[in-house]
């Protein structure tokens, strides 16, 4: 082997170092921008969570944020996120599987693109769609009335936990479909056939092979849905005009000025809490993704 001019122990030539520096400079704009517009605000929130209005350090924000109406908000938010991640998650898998086993390529493509599109519904337009559907003067409401059922008599409103969950499902289910479809496609037909050839019935295949292989992706999808529900603001706000006790809504209210004296930074404490929960969730998600991609290749 011919000897190279630069061996590992010698310092790199000036030219090499220069091109490395230039390349690193190429990444600088991105780095600076991210730090400025993402890092600094995020840091402001985290630091502010521990600051008192007079400028000293304090735990009071955190303690206020973990009690009373704010604790209630957290609990509701997490409950809402759990419900709208597990139920739409399961529904999403079932639907994705049903779609994949459809014959006809065109139909499958349409549905998969539609999921991509529906997963992007959210916020204000979606809220209004559902108001038109299940609101007091909504279409389905009047249909149900003609059938003799008045959901509002039974205490249903769109602005309740159930109502918001229903609306969330509208974009959570497609999100799950998007996430789980590649995993479902990664289930090789030869696994199914090998299992069958060895005497496995359908449920046995799912129990021993299909299910376990799919599980990391499924769990990852549920986590993603969980994170998505936790962060959601616009839909709930547009639906409830802030009347429901959700953490994100409560954080928003701090910016609108309805704050008790001495509690200005509680909103940041709430934000800090949210960030922590979501960070944990996202870490879990990427670990699971990496795990499943090992198997599905």
């Amino acid at each position: 082997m011919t000897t190279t001019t630069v061996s590992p122990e010698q310092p790199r030539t000036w030219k090499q170092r220069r091109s490395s520096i230039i390349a690193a400079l190429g990444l600088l704009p991105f780095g600076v921008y991210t730090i400025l517009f993402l890092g600094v605000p995020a840091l402001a929130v985290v630091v502010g969570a521990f600051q008192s209005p007079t400028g000293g350090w304090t735990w009071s924000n955190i303690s206020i944020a973990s009690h009373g109406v704010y604790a209630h908000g957290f609990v509701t938010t997490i409950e809402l996120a759990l419900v709208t991640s597990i139920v739409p998650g399961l529904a999403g898998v079932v639907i994705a599987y049903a779609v994949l086993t459809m014959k006809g390529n065109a139909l499958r493509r349409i549905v998969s693109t539609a999921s991509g599109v529906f997963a992007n519904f959210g916020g204000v337009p979606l809220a209004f769609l559902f108001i038109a559907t299940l609101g007091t003067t909504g279409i389905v409401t009047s249909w149900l009335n003609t059938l003799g059922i008045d959901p509002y008599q039974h205490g249903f409103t769109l602005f309740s936990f159930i109502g918001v969950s229903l609306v969330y499902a509208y974009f959570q289910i497609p999100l799950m479909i998007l996430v789980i479809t590649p995993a479902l496609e990664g289930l090789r037909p030869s696994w199914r056939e090998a299992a069958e050839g060895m005497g496995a019935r359908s449920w046995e295949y799912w129990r021993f092979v299909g299910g376990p292989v799919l599980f990391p992706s499924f769990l990852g999808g549920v986590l993603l849905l969980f994170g998505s529900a936790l962060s959601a603001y616009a839909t709930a706000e547009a639906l409830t005009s802030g009347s429901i006790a959700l953490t994100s809504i409560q954080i928003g209210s701090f910016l609108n000025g309805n704050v008790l004296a001495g509690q200005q930074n509680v909103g940041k404490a709430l934000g800090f809490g949210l960030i922590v929960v979501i960070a944990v969730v996202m870490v879990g998600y990427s670990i699971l993704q990496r795990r499943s991609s090992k198997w599905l290749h």
Partner: protein
Amino acid sequence: MTLTAPLDTSTTENQGATVELIGLRRRFGATQALDGFSLTLQPGELVALLGPSGCGKTTALRVLAGFETVDSGRVLVNGVDQSRIPAQRRDMGMVFQSYSLFPNMTAQDNVAFGLRMRKVGSIQRRQRALELLELVGLEGQADKYPHQMSGGQQQRVALGRALAIEPRVLLLDEPLSALDAKVRVQLREQIRVLQTRLKITTLFVTHDQEEALSMADRVCVMRSGQIEQVDVPATLYSAPATPFVAEFVGTMNRIPGVIAEGRVSLLNKTVDIRTSADQPAVFRPAGTPVDVLVRPEGLAVTATAGARGIVMTTTFLGSVTRLGVLLDEDVMVYVDQPNSAVQVPVGSAAEVTLTERDVMVADRTGAGVAQAESASVEHP
């Protein structure tokens, strides 16, 4: 890697099943995948289904396995009609082309899976799985997951898994195609040895003729859903029944010639060719163009100044040297010469002569050869 554990064949009552595929027909959309396919496998024999892609060989295998249905025809195993029996209960072991091991299970669990489906107890099945892993030379890999093993190792585990249930028939769907050349050859031998020892009736699908010829008891050459020829490898090679088989198996030259009063004129000579067919080519009208099919070892090359052939290529093949000679009508013929012979250098003028006695004569139609007959050459 040789087989290690001696196999206790006394426990294997399996003397091999008889498999009959009768008149199978199957259409996929516009393609007729199987067109009246009939084949019988004798107990314990290894039959290779050989053919180009799309010829229907995999379909035939999958019909036997129970993963495809047929439009018409029957499948019998030991005389029993299989059409009502789902794949789960056909008791056949199948090895797929690649990636068929369950990724969430270790090698041992993979092999034990079939036994688990048959409700064999945990200790027994793990023990048996270990035995099988030893049989395929992978006893150290029992706790490895598929993504931690090489392609060759995975296929060996797949083989063990298929054999664990002591199937009546072993089905192999191009199991070696995705492997490296060297691994392929090794595994080829292993499969053959195992199969012979266990006396399992085996159907082996491949597009690699070398594989088929080296492994099988009989080879079934397929094209467009039909059987071209079923024979032992030697006969397939020396007495191909159709031009397709002749050209698919081994290398075959196609030399243009012309009928000349009951004889065939080719390579600047006129030779007597006798055929046993009803309408022997030699009795066609004079001037009819024909092709004479002969293998490279049936020709000879000599350097001759002024001859119309030119040696274009020389390829060292190990046991022989193959010369490519360009003839008059832009036809390239390949001639094998033993390495000991005097080599004719590239670029020299050369003459090609027919030394073989058994050849095939075929009509030369515009679109290809329609019919061919075996013939023997009368050398003066």
